[in-house]
């Protein structure tokens, strides 16, 4: 058992013994990860805020049923992923593909090739962001867990409550679709260039 996990279990025991501050410590420790997990799946701050808070409330509520074979980290991720997937399924019509806030900026002082690379990277990021919003929630979840949390296949299988094979398959499909989106964008860009 990792040190962090041991600490978490001690905190869980304290929460069950009535120590609210211990729950506060758990929330402090995981709030950013849980928020960003929900945010990266919804790309909407208000939804992510709601889902992150709700994940902790659900965790608190179900604390006595916390299984010892799980780490708290996996458990809270699982609650958040479940809530977010359900949310996305329910609200899929309402979540708009927000515009790419990052955009690209031509940075002063950098040479032209750097700027060009930066532009391409930003455009690709925008495409990935748009395409991520079109992925089925399960595929989106594994892609987010792998890409941003660098979670292992086993960890994702626990969080998603499915087999490693399913995780790999979902991840492969997600990447494949994202890759296709980049390819299509490239082709379109080439055609534009030819037309010009």
């Amino acid at each position: 058992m990792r040190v962090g996990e041991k600490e978490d279990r001690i905190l869980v025991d304290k929460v069950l013994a009535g120590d609210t501050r211990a729950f506060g410590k758990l929330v402090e420790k995981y709030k950013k990860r849980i928020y960003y997990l929900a945010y990266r799946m919804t790309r909407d701050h208000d939804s992510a805020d709601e889902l992150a808070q709700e994940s902790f409330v659900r965790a608190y509520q179900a604390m006595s049923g916390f299984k010892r074979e799980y780490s708290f980290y996996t458990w809270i991720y699982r609650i958040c992923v479940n809530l977010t997937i359900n949310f996305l399924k329910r609200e899929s019509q309402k979540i708009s593909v927000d515009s790419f806030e990052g955009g690209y900026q031509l940075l002063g002082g950098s040479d032209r090739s750097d700027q060009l690379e930066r532009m391409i990277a930003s455009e690709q990021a925008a495409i990935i962001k748009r395409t991520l919003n079109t992925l089925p929630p399960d595929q989106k979840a594994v892609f987010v867990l792998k890409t941003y949390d660098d979670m292992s296949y086993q960890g994702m299988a626990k969080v998603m409550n499915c087999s490693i094979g399913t995780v790999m398959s979902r991840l492969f499909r997600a990447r494949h679709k994202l890759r296709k989106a980049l390819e299509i964008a490239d082709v379109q860009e080439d055609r534009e260039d030819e037309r010009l």
Partner: protein
Amino acid sequence: MNDCREKKRLQIYLDGWMDKSEMGLFESHLRKCDVCQTALVEFEEVSAAALEIVDHAPEREYWDSFFARVNNRIISRDVSPYEEPKKSTFRIKLASYSIGIMTLGAALIVAFNLISGNSFGPDTVTESSINIVTPTVAETKSDLPLAKIEESITVEPEIRVEVEDSDNRVITAELNSSPSVSEPQVSSSGDLAGLATTETELKVIERRDYQSMFRGPFRITHAELRLSDDENFLTRLLAEYGGLAGDDFSISPNVVAEGILSSYASGGSGQNESIFIARSNGIIDPVNPNWGYLGIPGDSVNTESYRRYMIELDLTRTK
């Protein structure tokens, strides 16, 4: 369009899940294969582009007040982490599931009577019951050497259904008094190919969907098991999984184990199943690129590990 059947293994390579022994071979393939090289670059591009996405960063005040807001919710809803209220809720919910669980219970009794040879009819499968039958195993036709059977062990199928309610609480219905089933222990020579050719009385376990047996706001998270005479189960499973199934189709770890057991009895055609488990040391990578992956963690080249893995899955329990 050019393609390469090794392409699906790129993901394992990219994510650092490939064994060192395989990595050398794969990298030498990669150096020669334009298709895989291009795909690798493209996958890396996807990850790099995803990391370029600018996340919304809430203000510091947001984080500072986060716990207070969570706590307000807890207080306003009068939520408690303690056992007492959960028990009462559990009982209420359990009562609401009683019809489903009773149905399952009745089905299990029928199933156990069948496996223990009581006077029920043979091999009857109905939609509303779990049916456990002792199959006749197909004759082995493989060119591979037969695995040596060193001893028989007794395993005890554990039939259990878990459901998860809308609050992520798991409710388990379990039957512990399951009858023993003999299963052979094959030699652990390191050649798993032998597992596919074992010539014994094996039981094939098939997945069963219990969804229709329940009503209520919950989903099944873990459900098995039944014995079946369907020796082509794994082949169908793989084909469905990778080729035909929708995104919602998932293979539970138990089904992986079912697949393994199924492959024991399937005769080992050399085209799938154990052969690939053995060669890929943990990852089944079917030769047909249209098929999906099945993952088996750990040192699966060893029979003992295999068995331990299945035990870990709660599929079987040794005596």
